[in-house]
């Protein structure tokens, strides 16, 4: 650990987060097995496999264009389960409420959670609620945990990418992160960017149905964006990945807002996107299946697993140049330089 106090960067998904996990949290907590570093843990249970995951949601502001902390909390956990190839079945909800939170706000959040759960066909079966004094929580914190089951024998994990594989993305990047950032006070920017928060389990089921064992890995690029997730994948699979900047779908409003703030859309969070690493021979048909599905109509091939240095992620730039993509240390901060 290079710091003796916890910094915001430790929660941003970049190298500081990894440092915290690798040097402190995993060594001290993990008694089960090697740290899989996947979105969900896949554990053997009564002769079957179960996927189990947990996530906490502390987004600020709690209401933003395109959603709120509630649907985020449900979709996020649904998606983590889906990325392991599991069918999400049940969800738990832990609420930490700040004294003074308007009941009407809580009502809106709960309705959104129920609607998100229904849309994802999961059941919220258990939960807990705590209230803390004013100032001790940022209006509401939510933790959701989820269990999923496997309807197939496929083994999908972050270490499954192979040279020659193709990387698919189901739509434009950066919507969620920019929607939230723009909704915060202090930057005084207006736009119609909306969060892409959405459940992906339906899309995943379809991709697996069509691609089967040709689908080698699935990851959802949340904190840290597509860049961080691909870097993690490259490390886990010990492969080199090359992205094509011209193939990356980005909404003009997102690239415009990023240009003003000096941010890179590749590092901005998404909440309704997945990366699918697929064997080359199956790429076209999996892409076609993706585009047929409502959650993947803007799907695209954005890169491939090339044969170079393990753990490297390269970008072929719009003018044909090459540069590397590295994980950020902490949060991406707006800059004017």
């Amino acid at each position, binding site marked *: 650990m290079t710091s003796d106090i916890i*910094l915001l960067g430790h929660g941003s998904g970049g190298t500081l987060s990894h440092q915290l996990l690798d040097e402190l949290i995993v060594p001290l907590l993990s008694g089960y097995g090697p740290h899989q570093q996947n979105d969900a843990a896949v554990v053997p249970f009564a002769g079957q496999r179960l996927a189990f995951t947990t996530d906490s949601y502390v987004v600020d502001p709690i209401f933003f264009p395109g959603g709120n902390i509630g649907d985020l909390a449900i979709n996020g956990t649904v998606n983590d389960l889906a990325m392991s190839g599991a069918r999400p079945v049940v969800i738990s909800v832990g609420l930490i409420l700040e004294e003074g939170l308007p009941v009407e706000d809580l009502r809106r959040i709960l309705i959104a959670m129920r609607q998100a759960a229904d849309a994802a066909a999961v059941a919220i079966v258990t939960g807990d609620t705590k209230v803390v004094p004013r100032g001790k929580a940022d209006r509401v914190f939510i933790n959701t945990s989820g269990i999923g089951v496997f309807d197939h024998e496929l083994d999908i994990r972050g270490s499954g990418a192979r040279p020659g594989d193709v990387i698919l993305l189901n739509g434009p990047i950066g919507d969620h992160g920019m929607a939230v950032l723009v909704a915060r006070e202090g930057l005084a920017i207006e736009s119609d960017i909306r969060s892409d928060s959405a459940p992906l389990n339906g899309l995943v089921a379809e991709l697996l149905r069509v691609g089967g064992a040709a689908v080698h890995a699935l990851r959802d690029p949340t904190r840290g964006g597509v860049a961080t997730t691909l870097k993690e994948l490259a490390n886990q699979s010990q492969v080199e990945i090359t992205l094509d900047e011209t193939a990356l779908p980005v909404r003009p409003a997102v690239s415009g807002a990023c240009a003003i703030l000096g941010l890179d859309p590749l590092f901005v969070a998404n909440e309704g996107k997945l990366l699918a690493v697929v064997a080359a021979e199956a790429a076209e048909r999996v892409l076609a299946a993706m585009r047929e599905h409502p959650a993947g109509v803007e799907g695209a091939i954005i890169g491939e697993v090339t044969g170079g240095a393990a753990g490297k992620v*390269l970008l072929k730039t719009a003018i*044909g140049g*090459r540069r590397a993509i*590295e994980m950020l240390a902490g949060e991406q*901060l*707006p800059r004017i330089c």
Partner: protein
Amino acid sequence: MNFSREFRDPRVARCLLAEIRQAVDGQTGVLTFMEVCGTHTMAISQQGIRSLLPPAIRLISGPGCPVCVTPVDYVDHAIALARRPGTIIATFGDMVRVPGSSSSLLREKAQGADVRIVYSPLDAVALARRNPERAVVFLGVGFETTAPTVAGSILQAQKQGISNYFVLAAHKTMPAPMAALSADPELQVDGYLCPAHVSAIIGAAAYQPLAREGGVPCVVTGFEPLDILQGVLLLARQATAGVAKVEIQYSRVVKPDGNRKAQQLLAEVFAPADAHWRGIGVIPGSGLEIRSAYAPFDAARQLPVAVEAPREAAGCLCGEILKGKVTPHQCPLFRTGCTPENPVGACMVSSEGTCAAEYKYGI
């Protein structure tokens, strides 16, 4: 017309690269072109420009990162103000992770200091208006693109009768360091890519002495990929023809005389002063200090605090990096002892530092 997208056409990029190769065809030795703008440092790395240029052209970075050339005692001063009770520090994101002698603003924030990232100094003025019982200190770092905006914020605070808005000023000006670099016998610079937006303010004519007396080609260049490639092409043509003049590639924004009104705003609030450039030393008249007429807004004068004695980290080669004498890979600390998570010097942690760019984008 979209003033950005038009300047990214990859087909035109290929043409420009072919012309560049033609311009240096038969050239013995390497032409070294230096950019002196952090945004150029970043753009060149982000666009992968170096991977496309012929080996006869070498692009290096000079002291174009205002955060990087700011001495460590400025950060210490900002930290001391952050610790002052009832104070809000408002700053561009660029400054927040820069290491001072023993801490950083981000670390101070983690321990309870009120440090806020703003996009514009006017946002800091608004912050002051909304928090009349607190002192709001804006960290004024940046060259002539930014300094007039800070001047503007002081004038607006004055107009609105706001008395709790202060600026801790450490602005510096171009082209002063370029002349210092050109005079350095250890450095061979065959051409300058001159900064785009600093030049929009000060005008391209500011570089005449460098070209005429210094004999160094100067091309004022924009930030889009085609701008940068065209800038390199114009420099290559000048250098191979043995010519040294000031050319404006970024003609859609930069004029020979620059933005007079912005210059006046600057001169109204700021006066030239000597400034210490990290790695280079003191360059006379290359800094900006708040004039006494605006002393009520000067944080250094109005909010006295004890600032710790400055300590530069041992082994830090930022000074040599900033002069373009050492590349990041030549620094023994690069990637080993000095990383974005654990930065030793500003060049690594500044959002546009030379080492940060190489660490993030270098292959």
